[in-house]
């Protein structure tokens, strides 16, 4: 097996996050010589965290400039680490930082890149990548002859590597961070009580356009819908997704759910989050939406239409019921 470089950036506390450790598991399963490349303000804690992973070398680019998530410095750091390692395969987790920077690095090194990999394996003695095409509608396994080959692995596909920490020996790689025209200003997040996206939540709760439609009494009840949905999210600590039709209504200024933005959108033109369970409400379960559920293992839906898309093999259970009534009861049971 060829030499593998695992690239990882540190978090604000100097350690490696779970997705980086998942990529480490994938790299070890692939076999071959393993080199680690770390990027961050300071990398000692991260290096010590994985000292026992069996890497032949731990290379690092560190300094304040590399604590900031920014294309120019991240790409410069990754390029330097790749050149120092000389590895045929470079593996990293698809964080926003690496997804932004590594395609450009692949070009600089005359390599190729495959992103959103869900698995790496050995096929006929050569590394192979599994990934989805057409927004999770077609699955493929592919191999490449070009090297270096960069592979960005989606989070949640492998168990996180665990091992005893130790005292790691780190080789420093010098990189000039001058010349960037971009300054990182900070992270803008919703207020804590307005945060509806929880990537680590066990349950994904998806709201469809039905929440904003006229109900049995001929009127819309968006205030009730907001109260019920937010109550459930708080009570169940669930993450909120929305169908495109509902999210688009919000974007067009209609009187709909105020907390619903394009960031919540699930489906072909939205995100494909990974959660153990998913509960769909007031959504018909048509294919462009359901492709966003590709990585939700257990699926239940509440819809008034017994013939909706969820009934056609897309959900494990379809409750033919009024979501307003059911979520009201759910919130009572949750004490929300």
């Amino acid at each position, binding site marked *: 097996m060829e030499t593998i470089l695992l690239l990882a950036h540190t978090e604000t506390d100097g350690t490696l996050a779970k997705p980086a450790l998942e990529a480490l598991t994938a790299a070890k399963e692939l076999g071959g010589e393993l080199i680690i490349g770390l990027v961050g303000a300071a990398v000692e804690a991260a290096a010590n965290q994985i000292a026992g992973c069996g890497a032949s070398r731990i290379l690092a680019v560190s300094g304040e400039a590399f604590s900031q998530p920014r294309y120019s410095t991240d790409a410069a750091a990754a390029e330097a680490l790749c050149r120092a390692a000389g590895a045929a395969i470079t593996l990293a987790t698809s964080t926003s930082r690496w997804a*932004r*920077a590594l*395609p450009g690095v692949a070009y600089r090194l005359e390599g190729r890149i495959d992103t959103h990999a869900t698995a790496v394996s050995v096929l006929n003695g050569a590394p192979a990548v599994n990934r989805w095409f057409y927004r999770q509608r077609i699955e493929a396994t592919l191999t490449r002859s070009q090297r270096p080959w960069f592979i960005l692995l989606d989070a949640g596909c492998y168990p996180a590597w665990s091992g005893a920490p130790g005292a790691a020996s780190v080789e420093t790689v010098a990189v000039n961070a001058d010349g960037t025209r971009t300054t990182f200003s900070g992270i803008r997040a919703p207020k804590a009580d307005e945060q*509806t996206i929880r990537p680590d939540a066990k349950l994904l709760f998806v709201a469809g356009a039905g929440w904003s439609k006229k109900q049995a009494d001929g009127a819309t009840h968006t205030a009730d819908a907001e109260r019920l949905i937010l109550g459930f999210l708080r009570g169940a600590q669930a993450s909120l997704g929305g169908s495109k039709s509902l999210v688009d209504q919000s974007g067009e200024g209609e009187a709909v759910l105020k907390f619903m933005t394009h960031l919540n959108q699930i489906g072909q033109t939205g995100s494909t989050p990974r959660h153990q369970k998913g509960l769909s409400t007031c959504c018909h379960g048509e294919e462009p939406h359901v492709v966003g559920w590709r990585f939700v293992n257990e699926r239940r839906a509440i819809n008034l239409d017994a013939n909706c898309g969820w009934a056609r093999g897309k959900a494990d259970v379809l409750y033919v019921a009024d979501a307003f009534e059911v979520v009201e009861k759910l919130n009572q049971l949750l004490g929300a």
Partner: protein
Amino acid sequence: MSNPFQIVVCGSIVPDPLQTLEPVTAAAGPSLKNEMMLPAVLDPWAGHALFEAANLAQKTPGSKVWLVSQGPKAKLQQVMMTVAQKVPFELVALDGPSSGFADSFETAAALAGAIQGIAGLDKTRLLVFGGWESASRGAGSTMQMVGERLGITEQFFGVDQIEILADGGMEILERVEGGKHQVSVCSAPPAVLGWATGNLPEPRNNPQVGMANMRTIMPALQRAKAAPGANAGLSYASVSLPKQQRETRVVKNMPAEEIAREIIAWVRED
């Protein structure tokens, strides 16, 4: 705000999301069954990028928008009939694959070559827009390579907002993990922005804009250079539809409270 921008939007075409897609394998590699027959649309994220570009150009007098689009010429023409109605732009067409199985490296080379071929382009005022991913390959890697080929190292992805500051700098919001935005300030163009959805609704059709655009679109399609995608070095070992079909239990006539109890028990299971 007085410095105009030269905004080049890269955007391909994709099958209408409502179409059923089935892969087939030919000598040249995988493709979609009846691909040329499938109705196509402008890639949704590229569409957002185009609308944001037009909005920025409108707010910055003297700015101009180009749309560099690669796809089979006949399909491009079909899609442009609709897109042309939305916002003013000048088309630069490339006659090549729009397949999700095409490699981003080669697509980037073709797009960068087309941008470099735009006469009179002022690269000091250049903003290269595109979708952060496509609805076909979904790689999120093409725009970075376009930028690198053009020598642009200020790049932003998952962009939802750009605001031009009083000093001419650009404040840019990029999506990051956990439903948050990263805020950065880029002091000046050139830059690459891979757009997520942005904040703008799709513009209404405007026949006058459509007529103005069509004057340049048809000649651009006639001039479209061939951009063959060879997928050199890339082999697909398997391409298939997901097979998982669930045995759906349809529950009717169950009281809401009972449904709620069942769901709570399910949520609390490990």
